[in-house]
């Protein structure tokens, strides 16, 4: 298809290396190889045996109802996040300060629509329709990532989102490339490859600001101050309070706990912030020799829960925007269906 060739237009940016990110991309490639190897092995039989043998469950296989439902919930939430996530960045496309940045941002937001499409398609293999999922989003029955309920107040937010939000998303999503459900694992491999470009362009954009005029530098630091804790909250509640984690781990949907992934993200960000010359807004952030990790202040989980429940700065705005786009498009979708029913091909 013509359009898919355009994904990843964010490539070609002249970038200081995002320290630690190459390892993650290597992990995606190893997951892809493992996926092919799993496909080559003979069928293992029962659901439990397939999971045990690290093979993939495919749409026609028998699976427990809770496995199916849990995956629909998770994949749909991920798809909804891509769709709602177009708004905070879309907010700056018409005001991007150079044509090159405008092109990169347009390409990135287009990738997000594309990711939403793959993910809805992956969810559809589990026996739901896109219409049902759209309805679940618009009615508020299904959620999307709370990070998108924060506002993008300055241009530097485009850089901070790329670096921190896409960075956190990659840390979360790379293990999903090994998820036991085949269509989800395959979608995630493709998505992670594109996300790594998103992170790189954000980091590069922030680097330019951090090394620019005093005003640009202030803008960059302010953006990092606002996005740091919401990014840490993207890994979800602490392990002790996570509702879906244990079963997801047993079924090899999830491979690492929320707290493990959060720690991995912090450990990656600290040296990256040093290269940027920006400060992470945590006075207690320090290397712990004994643990071999950085100690850090956890995000405010009460705030996370308030935002999840609908009381973040932009929940109402994001949902109103999505509902309006859906409602305003109704006559177009009806006309397309009416035309298709006439049996002609436009």
């Amino acid at each position, binding site marked *: 298809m013509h359009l898919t060739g355009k994904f990843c*237009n964010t490539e070609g940016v002249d970038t200081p290396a995002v320290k630690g990110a190459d390892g993650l991309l290597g992990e995606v490639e190893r997951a892809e190889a493992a996926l092919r190897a799993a496909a080559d092995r003979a069928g293992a039989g029962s659901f439990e045996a397939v999971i045990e043998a690290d093979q993939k469950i495919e749409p026609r296989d028998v699976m427990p109802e809770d496995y199916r439902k849990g995956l629909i919930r998770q994949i749909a939430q991920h798809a909804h996040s891509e769709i709602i996530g*177009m708004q905070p960045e879309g907010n700056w496309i018409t005001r991007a300060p*150079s*044509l090159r940045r405008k092109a990169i941002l347009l390409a990135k937001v287009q990738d997000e629509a594309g990711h939403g*499409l793959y993910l809805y398609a992956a969810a559809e293999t589990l026996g739901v329709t896109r219409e049902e999922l759209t309805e679940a989003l618009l009615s508020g029955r299904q959620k999307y990532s709370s990070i998108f309920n924060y506002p993008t107040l300055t241009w530097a937010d485009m850089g901070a989102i790329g670096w921190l939000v896409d960075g956190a998303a990659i840390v979360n999503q790379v293990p999903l490339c090994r998820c036991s459900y085949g269509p989800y694992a395959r979608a995630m491999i493709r998505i992670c490859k594109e996300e790594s470009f998103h992170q790189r362009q954000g980091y590069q954009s922030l680097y330019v600001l951090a090394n620019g005029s005093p005003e640009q530098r202030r803008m960059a630091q302010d953006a990092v101050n606002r996005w740091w804790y919401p990014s840490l909250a993207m890994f979800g509640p602490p392990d002790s309070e996570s509702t879906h984690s244990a079963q997801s781990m047993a079924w090899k949907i999830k491979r690492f706990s929320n707290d493990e992934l959060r720690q991995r993200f912090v450990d990656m960000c600290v040296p990256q912030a040093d290269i940027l010359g920006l400060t992470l807004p945590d006075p207690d952030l320090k290397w712990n020799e004994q643990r071999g990790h950085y100690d850090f202040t956890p995000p405010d989980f009460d705030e996370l829960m308030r935002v999840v429940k609908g009381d973040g700065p932009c929940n109402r705005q994001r949902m109103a925007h999505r509902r309006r*786009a859906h409602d305003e498009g109704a006559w177009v979708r009806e006309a397309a269906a009416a035309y298709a029913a006439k049996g002609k091909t436009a």
Partner: protein
Amino acid sequence: MTDPMSEGSSRVNQQARVPQRSGGTPLELADDALIAAQRLSEWVARAPTLEEDVALTNIALDQLGVARLLLQSLGDEDELAYRRGDAEFRNCLLVELPFGRARGDLDFGWTVVWLLFLAAAQKLRYEAWDNEVAAKAVKESAYHLDHATQWVIRLGDGTSLSRERVQAAVEELWPYTHELTEGIRDDWLSIVEPVLKEATLVKPSHDTWRPSGGRSGRHTEHLSYVLAEMQALHRAHPGVQW
């Protein structure tokens, strides 16, 4: 008043200003594509389907890509895009109009009719050129034209409501196509008329009002709003890198 784009204007490389009526000047084509990209960007996260979100963003990217290549051939792309005032822009009036009758409107039927008219003209103008930029642009315009054609037919021959909406858009936008197609009108009509026919749409019977002025820098009220939004951040930080 002197024409700010006349000989001696410092921002535009003189060599690239060879007038080519059927091709349009590089600056005219660049500005058409740039303002079209800016307008299309308003659709991001607002399209009627997810597939259309991808498609419209893609078309905006194509338009922006051609605009950049053309502007780079004329001078510094950002200087030209961000530092010129509205009277220095050479785009046709069609591309600066809102996607509906009033500022802030975003009508999908209006947009696909607009794209049909624009892409047909851009394809013809790029075909009249003979260079690498044009070769890339012709291919992309052919895709934009195909995409718009399919939607105009679907909506024209869809429901009575959709027909009414795209017919209204044809009537509202038709006057602006005279400026758009100066020098290529017959070829343009031979592309557009069969599409309208298949879509069961009709051209307006009254066709005497033919607004123009964009090519000499006399624009509608809409352009300065488009530029205000596009240029505000860049102009607030003169001389920095992004």
